[in-house]
């Protein structure tokens, strides 16, 4: 492949410092600057590079710093500790792997002890933590390794190879065939087979078509897409370009939440660089294929994650959904056939083309192939971003990788799928994580938020919290959602203040059923899910919250 890039000769050592997301707000940038200063001060400029990279996963322990080639990972690094990390590289004290168990290295251990007395020594994390070893990184393969603002880094990591391969060796139909055979399903939550969606758009008569990337990650408690966009934006652009080639589109839009300024800035940089290198624009790789990408910023409306509302918003209108069919694949943006996929779906495309459909289909379960990125948050010790193969059990994620709740509390439930999902109780943690199993439990896979709740969490309050969210975010177009969510919220408030009667419980259930089956779009249809799932697994909490029967008798 011939992409003209100018990479300086690699230096033997590299220090990678996370400068996105959580680590950035935990002073990651200052750490990076201090590392650079320390490297210069130690006279190691020709030996060591310092790069700002994307997310390394364990966000609750940030800022994270990792050194190559040793692979030592330091957590909660402060700018003051930068010099110590550099000193360790300089003295050759690295690469011993897990130093905690290292024997016969008394000199160095003593040095560490001294460090401890002077200032808190940088904490090195063991690479054998299940949090890291249980992961299988496809979407996040470059996250934390490459500098997201340098296209050269992405290309060096085999970036844009899949696009080149598609354009040179494959017909659009062959690309779709690979995606179909891989078994990839939409990662936005619903799990619609991606290949089928692409084939539908491709089958529409030639003419103006669009490819849209849904980066309106509205689910509270989920930040996978943000991390992918901040850590590896080119991967998404490459996926979109391959999709556009497969379906015959020449214009793409990325719809990003306005709340993610850094993701927007990294995407803008990535688009500019890709254009300059001839990877976006006209005649990509000297083929007749043209593809342009524009960014569209969201402005804070959860409903815009729904595809028809999202398209309305791209057109500059109020983001209100409309009934389907017609599906966007037939009539989308400005009435043209439009392919909408989620960030994570697009991020899976390049590796599938590169490694083949069979490689991807071998990962995961019978009906859910590949991996899924989850943001493991809430009352859990190791909060952060994980990518695991489909079919892993919830207990493996929460207990092994997340190491349970902090302060010895018992984990009570895991909430998946945001306001459209449900709570899975701890007794069901043996369930494998895939689209079907979670649905059976009354929750959904969703976009990948996984919020752990411990024994102190009151489920009625959780249900009420989500209902308040849906009530606020309802666009108001259809009545079941607009009025139903308000009524549900009021009923839940009654439960919360111990004023509910058995009639209220009955009404709560009837109303949930009604809102679920009569709402126009996914927001309304899924709004009762948190209530239904908590009613199913934690009914005793609702019963306990009712007015004692004796009060009725007296009244």
């Amino acid at each position, binding site marked *: 492949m011939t992409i003209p890039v100018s990479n300086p000769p690699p230096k033997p050592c590299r220090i990678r410092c996370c400068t996105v997301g*959580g680590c*950035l707000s935990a002073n990651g940038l200052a750490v990076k600057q201090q590392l650079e200063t320390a490297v210069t001060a130690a006279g190691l400029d020709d030996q060591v590079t310092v790069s700002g990279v994307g997310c390394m996963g364990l966000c609750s322990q940030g800022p994270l710093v990792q050194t190559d080639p040793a692979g030592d990972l330091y957590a909660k690094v402060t700018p003051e500790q930068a010099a110590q990390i550099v000193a360790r590289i300089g003295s050759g004290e690295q690469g011993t792997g897990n130093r905690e168990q290292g024997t016969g290295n008394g000199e160095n251990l003593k040095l560490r002890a001294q460090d401890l007395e002077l200032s808190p020594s940088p904490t090195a994390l063991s690479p054998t933590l299940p949090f890291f070893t249980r992961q299988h990184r496809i979407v996040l393969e470059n996250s934390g390794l490459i500098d997201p603002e340098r296209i050269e880094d992405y290309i060096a990591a085999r970036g844009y190879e899949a696009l080149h391969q598609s354009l040179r060796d494959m017909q659009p139909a062959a690309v779709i065939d690979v995606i179909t055979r891989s078994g990839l399903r939409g990662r936005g939550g619903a799990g619609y087979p991606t290949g089928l969606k692409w084939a539908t758009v491709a089958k529409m008569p030639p003419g103006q078509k669009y490819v849209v990337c849904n980066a309106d990650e509205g689910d509270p408690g989920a930040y996978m897409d943000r991390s992918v966009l901040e850590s590896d934006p080119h991967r998404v652009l490459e996926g979109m370009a391959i999709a556009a080639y497969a379906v015959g589109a020449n214009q793409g839009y990325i719809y990003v939440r306005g709340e993610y300024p850094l993701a927007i800035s990294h995407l803008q940089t990535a688009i500019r660089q890709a254009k300059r290198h001839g990877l976006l624009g006209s005649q990509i790789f000297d083929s007749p294929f043209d593809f342009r990408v524009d960014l*569209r910023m969201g402005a804070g*409306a959860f409903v815009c994650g729904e595809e028809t509302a999202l398209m309305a918003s791209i057109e500059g209108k109020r983001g209100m959904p409309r009934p389907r069919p017609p599906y966007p694949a037939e009539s989308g943006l400005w009435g043209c056939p439009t392919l909408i996929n989620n960030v994570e779906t697009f991020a899976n495309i390049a590796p599938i083309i590169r490694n083949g459909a069979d490689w991807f289909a071998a990962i995961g379960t019978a009906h859910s192939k590949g991996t899924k990125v989850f943001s493991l*948050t809430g009352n859990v010790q190791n909060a952060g971003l994980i990518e695991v193969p489909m079919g892993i059990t919830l207990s493996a994620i929460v207990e092994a990788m997340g190491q349970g709740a902090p302060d010895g509390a018992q984990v009570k439930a895991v909430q998946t799928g945001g306001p459209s999902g449900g709570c899975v109780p701890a007794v069901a943690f043996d369930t494998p994580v895939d689209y079907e199993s979670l649905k059976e439990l009354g929750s959904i896979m969703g976009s990948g*938020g996984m919020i752990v709740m411990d024994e102190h969490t009151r489920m009625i309050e959780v249900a009420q919290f989500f209902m308040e969210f849906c009530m606020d975010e309802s666009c108001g177009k259809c009545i079941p959602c607009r009025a139903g969510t308000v009524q549900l919220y009021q009923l839940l408030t009654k439960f919360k203040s111990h004023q509910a009667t058995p009639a209220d419980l009955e009404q709560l259930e009837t109303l949930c059923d009604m809102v679920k089956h009569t709402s126009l779009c996914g927001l309304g249809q899924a709004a009762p899910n948190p209530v239904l799932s908590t009613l199913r697994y934690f009914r005793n909490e609702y019963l306990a919250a009712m007015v004692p029967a004796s009060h009725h008798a007296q009244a």
Partner: protein
Amino acid sequence: MKRHQYRPDALIEVLHTAQELFGHLEPELLLDIAHSLRLPPSQVYGVATFYHFFSLEPKGAHTGVVCMGTACYVKGAAQLLSALEQKAGIQAGETTADRQFSLMTARCLGACGIAPAVVFDDQLEGHQTADTVCDRLHACLSATE
């Protein structure tokens, strides 16, 4: 400013830029935008009020945004909010009478790994407690005096 495109579908982009420049969106400004993009004012107003991001009221000199995402909620964001409400003497979504401080809530800032998160004057801070946010509010307000 509107030179990016005079196309009507750029409305949301234009509103973003306008809010960045002026801090909030005045009715006259909305009218002006409607004229330039050749859109009915009702549609511009409709869009501006539909999205939470756009504000038709001026904000205070300092802002505090408490993330109310699920992860932050589970980690006690509600307590942070009520602490700030008490300290500043205003409700979420309001601005103090002296226009010094606006208190807001956000749906989710995507900083769930470091929940609960609060943004003071565009500076995101994680792992907050009721005490740290009150200190931060105090520091924020005394900085201008």
